[in-house]
């Protein structure tokens, strides 16, 4: 039995010349016969005929044969389509191995870049930035963080300026760090945000959050956090970190493109704040803090107390902090701090009760 179809408006293109040929179409014995004007009859088995997807209009359907990448048959008779059972079947995938290879290469390139090359370069370059440049880097980063953390979208996050609290903090810095031989003076700021955290930035910036002051059980714990962050400043961890993110921001922007470019920048800001330095860098900053507190006559065990306090408060700390606090190394750090307490030494509180009250009220 042979079925005939309407060839009006139909055209065949041989894939070589851009000239339409009129056709007559029949299906017999599972073969689509395409008769051309010059008498040639093409035979396409119906299961080898595919329809081009996502076509606009719908009045004309373009068909092709799986074995021929070029020839096209445009038909207007929709009845024909019923007899082409495989017309929507997708082409078998090809070149998957190559795709997988490049996908792995891309992931590896980004990985090597972010985890090896950029840190290596940043660590080495950090030592060569002149102090003024480091200071400028810190200022720029501080501005970015204040803007990124603002929730109203209007002003950068407020710096707390209570004069008595500021004076008390300045005095504390002075006491901890009496004869500074560092590259930078320490610039201490308190940000009006309830996150329980503190961080250091290049160029001697140390930033405390209001939430940390509220969580601290006494001035010694605050002093211990300050000493720890000064330890980071001295070893220039923040400078390395800022240079690293300068390298990483471009890469992440490249990967996510317009889809989530803004999110990548936010993510990096988050990383800057929560400052996940290496374990070695943290231990070094802890040890620096122990020495600094002991020299200033403040109980070095306070650092351990602060960690313990933060762990208790972990319930309402945000996810990143909670993760950090659940880290098993924290126990070791608390023990290390308590081991530094000299039973024979006389420790004095890091500031007077009045000063501590002023610091607690610095954001009011």
């Amino acid at each position: 039995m042979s079925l005939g179809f309407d060839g009006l408006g139909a055209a065949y293109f041989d894939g070589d010349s851009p000239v339409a040929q009129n056709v007559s179409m029949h299906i017999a014995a599972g073969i689509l016969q395409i008769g051309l004007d010059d008498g040639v009859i093409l035979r396409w088995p119906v299961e080898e005929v595919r329809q081009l997807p996502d076509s606009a209009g719908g009045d004309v359907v373009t068909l092709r044969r799986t074995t021929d990448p070029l020839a096209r048959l445009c038909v207007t008779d929709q009845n024909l389509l019923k007899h082409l059972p495989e017309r929507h079947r997708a082409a078998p995938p090809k070149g998957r191995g190559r795709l997988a290879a490049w996908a792995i290469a891309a992931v590896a390139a980004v990985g090597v870049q972010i985890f090896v090359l950029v840190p290596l370069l940043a660590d080495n370059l950090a030592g060569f930035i002149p102090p003024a440049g480091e200071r400028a880097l810190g200022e720029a980063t501080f501005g970015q963080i204040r803007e990124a953390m603002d929730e109203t979208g209007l002003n950068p996050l407020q710096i707390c300026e209570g004069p008595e609290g500021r004076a008390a903090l300045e005095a504390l810095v002075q006491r901890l760090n009496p004869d500074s031989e560092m590259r930078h003076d320490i610039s201490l700021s308190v940000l009006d945000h309830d996150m329980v955290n503190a961080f250091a930035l290049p160029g001697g910036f140390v930033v405390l959050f209001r939430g940390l002051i509220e969580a601290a059980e006494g001035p010694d714990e605050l002093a211990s956090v300050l000493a720890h962050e000064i330890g980071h400043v001295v070893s220039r961890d923040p400078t390395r970190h800022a240079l690293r993110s300068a390298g990483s921001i471009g890469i992440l922007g490249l990967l996510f493109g317009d889809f989530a470019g803004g999110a990548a920048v936010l993510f990096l800001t988050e990383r800057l704040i929560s400052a996940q330095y290496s374990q070695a860098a943290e231990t070094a900053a802890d040890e620096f803090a122990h020495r600094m507190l002991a020299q200033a006559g403040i109980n070095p065990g306070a650092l351990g107390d602060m960690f313990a306090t933060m762990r208790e408060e972990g319930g309402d700390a945000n996810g990143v902090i909670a993760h950090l606090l659940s880290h098993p190394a924290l126990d070791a750090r608390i023990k290390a701090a308590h081991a530094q307490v000299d039973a024979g030494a006389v420790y004095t509180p890091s500031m007077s009760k009045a000063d501590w009250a002023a610091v607690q009220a610095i954001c009011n």
Partner: protein
Amino acid sequence: MSDTPILNSPWQAAPQPQGVPVGTSAENGIAVEFSGKRGALFWLALKTGFFTILTLGFYRFWMKTRLRRWYWSAIRPGGHAMEYTGDPMEKLLGFFIAVVILTFYIGILNLLLMFISFSVFNSSVIGYLLSFAGVIPIWFYARYRARRYVLARTRWRGVRFGLEKGAWGFALRALWYWFLTIITAGILWPRMTFLLEKYKTDRTFFGSARLVQGGRWQMLYRAALPLLVSLLVMAGAAFWTLQVDPVFDGVEIDGEALANEIEELAAGDWSGFDLNRPERLLLLPLALAGILFGMIYYNWASKRMMANHKSANGIQFASALSGMRVTLIYVLGNFIAYLMLLLGIVALVFLAAALFSGGFTVFEEIPGAALMAGLPRWLSLVLLAGLYLSFFLLWGVLYNTFVTFPLMRHMARTTSLPVVVGLPLISQRARDEFAEAEGFAEALDLGAAI
């Protein structure tokens, strides 16, 4: 061709060499039809956009392919649809290749530039500028490569288009012409437009036929007239209202004086606000709108003029594109798309307030407000992120429906080929394998345009 005709018909004539048909429609030329429905495109864009969000962006290669297939098949010169044969997989592959190459360039370069910028200049501005400048040549390079890819995957009547290699040549020329344009304060802009278009057109093929860009660059000055007039009006208005006959009566206005006058104004006292015919200030926004129109007009009128001078052996193009119409499409379409985005952002802000404030007093009366405030924080975040992405999706869909679609339709319907006698002389060209597809353009975020 792999499909050998089976010569089994007894009355089959011997194959005849095909001559140029005389007196058929080929002599009268062909028009371009556009046959897609806006609604169909809307659903296709919505569906593929939705998948893109679900797959965190990976489906965008499929989305772009499917949208192009649709647009191409809607454009029908002489009644026969164009065909887009690009493959999403090769786009994904190209993206990976570009990522491998570009991460090193961008990552290391950015870091070094930041270091130098802070070490030498104590500021990040120089670093950002240099890092931006470093990407510009790659940007032009990627644009040319993307065009080559799209043309290589475009067919009409079964015959491939193509663009010759020459991306670095294009990038170098583009940089040089931009430099000339900037140092001549824009006077040589039409020269840049023309020569860059000529560079691309002269390397474009349809099958075996090479296209040629004719005409001269000076002809484009006519397209720049509205822009020029608007600029002159702007300069004149600024000069008039600020220098010759100032609106602000010569007294220097500082912040305090201004605040005082506004206070008096609020009290109903106009006397302090002694402006000299302030209605003349309206000229400035008018001129600004004129400049915007002039820029769109120049962009598209120059395309029309150059299209009218494009030809191949025995084929000519003609375009009746209307600069006014295109401007209207841009203004209206963007208005609709951005209105949607604005509405979405407002809704988002209100929802965020309801979710995180623990219920403002304003929201307490709304049923369900307390319920929303009681949701776990992560769920609220997921909800907000989902909404945020949905509004961007909807913006993209509306942009496709109300800007790209009418633009494509207008372009198609105003284009024609008055002379096509050369068509039968054309034969197929070889496939351009082109492993990295439009990966660079995708990675550098140039792929937003179809």
